């Protein structure tokens, strides 16, 4: 087993990995940029190496600095977390070349699954269904017609050089195809300088369901159920659940076994996730594979009772998986909310600043993975994820009620966060019924939907009245504090001390 592990990451995931290290008798080493000197992930480490200026591309993304830090402290292994270098095959290779162990898959598997084309080919070879269609461009209208017939309407005509949701056209039937095809081509030519289009089956109101798996160096690969990740805003996940409300045991097994097949075909070792799209008939289609630990892994850990990071480290140290497929049982339901320092009332723009008060939720069934603390200044250089707030309960319905309770207890002051946004979602009837698809969040945030929610004035005005009365009391108290003999009121002196502490 390793004696020292360098964590090549920051924030909540670096804290989470450091905790696993302490639990396993491994010494955790942090790396930090200028902005992160007093961050929580440094506070929980035993050693910490400064790796440069605040910008990621001058610190956390610089392979040479990470390797040098590991050498400096004599670390045996490096955990890349998620994001940053975690899916960088060049980094995996550099770690290997340096005689160190990466807590993750081999560089070859990372390379294979990192490219969308080779990943799809690998999945296809493994006999796993893909989103039907072509990845090469259509040469003629006739080819488009025959592909469309084979795939089945409705289809999407997509620009080969397009992206970000642009250059896509929905075609519902054969009658529409000819004109859609020529229009799509001319749009593609003018927008992307490339008239090439291809076809993909249109999946209406899809669900995004992913399978967690882990493999060891002894040929064992086990799947640990699924996660439902359909609640996304601009293709970023905001709420994740385990299990998916629409999977039964049979479908779970089919998807799990398909995911394991793909992983085996890739020679995969350590933790990974295979992402699928589910259509309304519950057919699943391979999307891609993520060759790292994911942000939302806690919901899987809560429902299966397994610790994935412990297992990752053990696998990397050459041990066999501590469980077989038959040992994996799923119990209850877990939901995770990603709490970001973003302003939901201002286009979710980042909201940096000092967290003046933090009241962390507690009580039964709560798992709170955080990289923040009261008095911390949220830096502007990185993804503004403050914490992952997870709940577990025996049923999804109980988990939703628990989530509502926990979101109400959780308090963050001093910055804007997505907490109010989650409080509104937790109360939404469609969310509570578990009937949603990848379009839910965008519909929820639609200006008309928002206006309707804010105009739904509750019959009882008591809360608004109490808010107003308290605001008056607070204003008067603050004014009295300002007029007192002390040069600063207690509140502002506290804030000033917090800021001064940050500068030291």
């Amino acid at each position: 087993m390793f004696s020292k592990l360098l964590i090549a990451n920051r924030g909540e995931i670096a804290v989470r990995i450091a905790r696993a290290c302490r639990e396993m008798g491994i010494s955790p080493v942090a790396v930090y940029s200028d902005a992160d000197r007093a961050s929580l992930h440094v506070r929980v480490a035993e050693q910490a190496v400064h790796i440069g200026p605040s910008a990621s591309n001058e610190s956390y993304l610089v392979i040479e600095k990470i390797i040098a830090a590991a050498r400096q402290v004599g670390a045996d292994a490096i955990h890349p977390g998620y994001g940053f270098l975690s899916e960088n095959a060049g980094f995996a290779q550099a770690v290997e070349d340096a005689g160190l162990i990466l807590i993750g898959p081999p560089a070859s598997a990372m390379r294979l699954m990192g490219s969308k084309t080779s990943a799809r080919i690998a999945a296809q070879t493994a006999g796993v269904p893909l989103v039907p269609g072509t990845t090469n461009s259509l040469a003629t209208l006739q080819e488009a017609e025959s592909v469309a017939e084979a795939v089945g309407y409705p289809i999407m005509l997509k620009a080969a050089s397009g992206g970000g949701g642009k250059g896509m056209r929905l075609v519902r039937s054969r009658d529409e195809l000819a004109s859609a095809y020529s229009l799509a081509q001319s749009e593609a030519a003018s927008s992307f300088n490339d008239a090439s289009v291809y076809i993909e089956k249109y999946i209406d109101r899809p669900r995004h369901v992913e399978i967690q798996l882990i493999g060891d160096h002894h040929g064992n690969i086990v799947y640990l159920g699924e996660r439902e990740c359909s609640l996304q805003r601009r293709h970023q996940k905001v709420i994740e659940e385990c299990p998916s409300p629409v999977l039964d045991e049979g479908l779970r097994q089919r998807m799990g076994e398909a995911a394991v097949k793909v992983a085996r075909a890739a020679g995969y070792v350590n933790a990974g996730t295979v992402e699928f799209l589910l259509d309304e008939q519950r057919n699943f289609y391979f999307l891609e594979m993520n060759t790292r630990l994911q942000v939302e892994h806690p919901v899987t850990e809560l429902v299966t009772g397994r610790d994935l990071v412990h297992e990752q480290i053990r696998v990397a140290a050459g041990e066999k998986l501590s469980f077989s497929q038959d040992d994996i049982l799923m119990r209850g339901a877990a939901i995770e909310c990603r709490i970001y320092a973003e302003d939901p009332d201002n286009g979710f723009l980042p909201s940096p600043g000092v967290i003046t008060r933090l009241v962390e939720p507690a009580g039964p069934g709560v798992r709170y993975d955080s990289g923040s603390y009261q008095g911390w200044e949220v830096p502007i250089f990185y993804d503004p994820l403050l914490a992952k707030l997870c709940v577990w309960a025996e049923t999804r319905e109980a988990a939703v009620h628990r989530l509502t309770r926990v979101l109400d207890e959780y308090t963050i002051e001093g910055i804007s966060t997505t907490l109010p946004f989650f409080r509104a979602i937790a109360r939404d009837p469609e969310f509570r019924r578990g009937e949603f698809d990848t379009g839910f969040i965008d519909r929820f945030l639609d200006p008309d939907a928002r206006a309707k929610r804010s105009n739904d004035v509750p019959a009882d005005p008591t809360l608004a009245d109490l808010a107003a009365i308290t605001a008056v009391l607070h204003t008067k108290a603050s004014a009295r504090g300002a007029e007192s003999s002390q040069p600063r009121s207690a509140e502002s002196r506290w804030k000033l001390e917090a800021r001064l502490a940050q500068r030291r």
Partner: protein
Amino acid sequence: MKYEAEINGHQISLEVEQHNGRVVARAGKRSYDLEVATPERGVYLMFLGDQVHEVRIWSADGNFLQVTVGGRQFTANIIDRKHRRVSEHRLEGPQQIIAPMPGKVVRVLLKPGDEVAAGQGVVIVEAMKMQNEIKSTKAGRILEVRVAEGESVNNKQVLAIVE
């Protein structure tokens, strides 16, 4: 004393009298007889008969108070009708001068130690091809300037501190 409150954009007329821990208030046509305790800074425990409501309140950017009660969030702005001046709370202690939108600092007008008047420009931020002079919310002295010319800033980023 009478007040006007703007709660989530809705106007409420208030009368509030406070004697030690007892508050007698009217909001519009509704009357309230409350006991109030303050277990922590910014936390008010309102006892209304046998109901108890925990109200959390904090000052966001000096313009509004953020209030959470019963799982609901409100923004509050209080105007003292008698004295017709905006709430005092935003003027106590060091005040953050913040960027109202993301942009780029094109000029820093003052430096630490400089005296500044309320409403005087501290930093010029350019965004969406418009230049905005960001002004000090109070008279005082510049304690810190946290940005430099040419630097990009995010919405609500602290530009300077005035004490």
